[in-house]
């Protein structure tokens, strides 16, 4: 057992750190949930991609560096410690790409991955429907067979990034007569500017159009934009969902960086006699550390040939609650300044805490609610019997 980095990993860290020191914008970009911020973040993705820092774990042929999971974790630590911008390409990079690597065709990978890496194509996810959230088996939007492809009909909602993104991916019911609700689903990709697509931005809690409703009226999707076999969408999507909750969605680097900033804020602002807030700061610092080490253990397990299953549900509950604790504690330390939104010129840290707080509040809700995750933990890791939800 060891926590030692190899000389190659250390060199990689040094290279990443030096590049980030030279390139990270000195003034934070505007929120990526605004048109202006979206464009600025897209340009940042292109800058990352130009020097192959956009998708370090991907094979070189698609714009990556072929890094190990461990080096990816190292890169993420350096990335967030450097105060680099949030990733507008995250849906495509972390959710779609793993699916394409596992289930896509060579043609799809060659066509779709490079522009995803460079920010030329920014993806929205289109899982949820008005009557279907964590229970994806209840999806009703349809994919109807037509010559050379499929026609999409129905409505998607809570589609992250869809207000400004280029393309979307999601599940559609292609066989309404299937004997089980999770059978007969097909995984498809479609352009958001296609004929028949209406995008209605939905303001999140702070009013920013962080997601959208999608109305689909016979939207044509060619066969080449189906991932995996028609009717096999559930299985294909589950591998994506596992990645989403597992290692790749929330790397420890962002929480480690936030915890370091919180500890600094506490040293700067806190009343030393206030041990209650000190304890909360300590718990978030410890939590970020625990999450990082837990991830290293998982990465070691993967490197040793193991796999992650329901364990990714432990991750999801942990980081989402840690993220909220980090930001709630920061807002408390900021006192009256904590209320200022990231769009207020006087907001501390250019509004990073305020924006981060709003973002963190969604954590326990999306990617499968924490209630569903706790059911999975109890049933699959502890072996408790299924029951009514």
């Amino acid at each position, binding site marked *: 057992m060891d926590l030692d*980095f190899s000389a190659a990993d250390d060199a990689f860290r040094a290279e990443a750190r030096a590049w980030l020191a030279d390139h990270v914008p000195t003034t934070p970009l505007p929120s990526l949930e605004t048109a202006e911020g979206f464009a600025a973040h897209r340009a940042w993705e292109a800058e990352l991609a130009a020097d192959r820092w956009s998708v370090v774990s991907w094979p070189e042929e698609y714009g990556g560096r072929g890094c190990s999971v461990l080096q990816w974790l190292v890169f993420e630590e350096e990335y967030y410690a450097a105060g680099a911008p949030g990733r507008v390409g995250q849906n495509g990079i972390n959710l779609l790409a793993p699916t394409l690597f596992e289930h896509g065709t060579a043609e799809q990978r060659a066509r779709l991955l490079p522009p995803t890496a460079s920010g030329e194509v920014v993806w929205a996810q289109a899982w949820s429907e008005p009557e279907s959230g964590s229970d994806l088996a209840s999806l009703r939007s349809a994919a109807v067979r037509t010559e050379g492809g499929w026609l999409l009909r129905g409505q998607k909602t809570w589609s992250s990034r869809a207000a400004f993104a280029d393309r979307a991916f999601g599940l559609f019911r292609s066989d309404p007569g299937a004997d089980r609700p999770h059978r007969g689903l097909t995984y498809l990709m479609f352009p958001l500017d296609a004929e028949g697509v209406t995008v209605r931005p939905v303001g999140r809690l702070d009013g920013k159009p962080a997601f959208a409703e999608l109305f689909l009226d016979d939207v044509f999707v060619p066969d080449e934009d189906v991932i995996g076999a028609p009717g096999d969408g559930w299985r294909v999507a589950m591998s994506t969902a596992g990645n989403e909750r597992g290692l790749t969605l929330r790397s420890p680097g962002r929480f480690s960086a936030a915890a370091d900033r919180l500890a600094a804020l506490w040293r700067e602002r806190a009343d030393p006699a206030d041990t209650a807030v000190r304890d909360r700061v300590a718990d978030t*610092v410890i939590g970020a550390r*625990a999450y990082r080490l837990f991830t290293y253990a998982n990465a*070691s397990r993967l490197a040793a040939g193991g796999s992650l299953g329901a364990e990714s549900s432990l991750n999801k509950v942990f980081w989402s609650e840690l993220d909220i604790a980090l930001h709630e504690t920061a807002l408390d330390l900021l006192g009256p300044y904590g209320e200022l939104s990231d769009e207020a010129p006087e907001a501390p840290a250019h509004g990073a805490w305020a924006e981060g707080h709003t973002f963190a509040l969604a954590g326990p809700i999306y990617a499968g609610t924490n209630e569903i995750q706790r059911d999975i933990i109890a049933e699959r890791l*502890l072996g408790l019997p299924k029951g009514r939800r």
Partner: protein
Amino acid sequence: MRFLLDDEQREFARTLDTLLAAADTPATARSWAAGDHAPGRALWSRLAAAGVFALAVPEAYDGLGPLPVELAVAFTELGRHAVPGPLVETVAAAALLDRLGDKAAAGTWLPRLAAGEATASLCVPDLTGPYALDADMADAVLVSDGDTVRLAATAGPVQRSADPVRRLFRPAGGTVLARGPEAAAATGYAAEVAALATAAQSLGLGRALLDRTVTHVRQRTQFGVPVGSFQAVKHRLADTLLALEFAQPLLHEAALTLAARGTAPREIAAAKVTAGEAAHAAARTALQLHGAVGYTEELDLSLWIRKARPLRDAWGSPASCRARVLAGPTAETRGRDLSGEDPRAPGSPAAPTVGKGAGA
């Protein structure tokens, strides 16, 4: 990097688990609480034969250590099986004697502690109050108040703990073994070893509480179904597992850091508070989900439940651990970086693995 226990370490844990599962530790603990140390002493010898106490003693004194990672592995199993006795105190006393600079005392006690022929207790008033665990049966009772270490003469009358298996005494008198900065430094090191071992014990205790509770809620039915099918029950147990799972890597990091640097105050504090709180919460959950039957002394579960709170508070309260985590420079959550201060850089001595006697 391979941040996982290796095969030998896992085999060591399995060996201890098997040994302890066959040893009827609940009966041993009940005898211990009643003042009959004979079954506990017998078990102590078997643990010593498996190498447990030698892990804290250097090879120069017939030990295998110090091996903090293996110590954490061993104490997780001791906690899982609720083994009675001054286990933590014995390994901490060994650490203290090793660092004290008193070769005569070290030569007298360390080989016997390693072999399980002697037991020790330790009182550090800043951390334990005036009390030493099981001082009446310990062969050596050490007291260290700051910069003076002495070998106590008498144990004093027993003070019953809320956990009757933990028998407390107020040692008095005795002879001074060491004074000054070296004694203070040795005490600090012993306290780190004690906190690490206690954190490991808490983690094992919490896992046992979770396992027993899961077994219970799968069998116990109410309203015609197993109570384990209720979402409120599931979620509470999911949270228990979460807390324990995320405490474990902190424990391993603390042990690795202690092995590499010889001191790891913040890492151990983080592990101690997290494992202690996780086990304490596991005990509360175990009690709640067992209901009234869990609130009885006769159910063996009580042996685990009652220990969770004292272990959480022993050898460093949660508040003191949290304060320690924030002491010193910031940027502590980041990886070992390129500052040149990495004590685990190539060239630092690698920790030896457990010797043959330990895992066999």
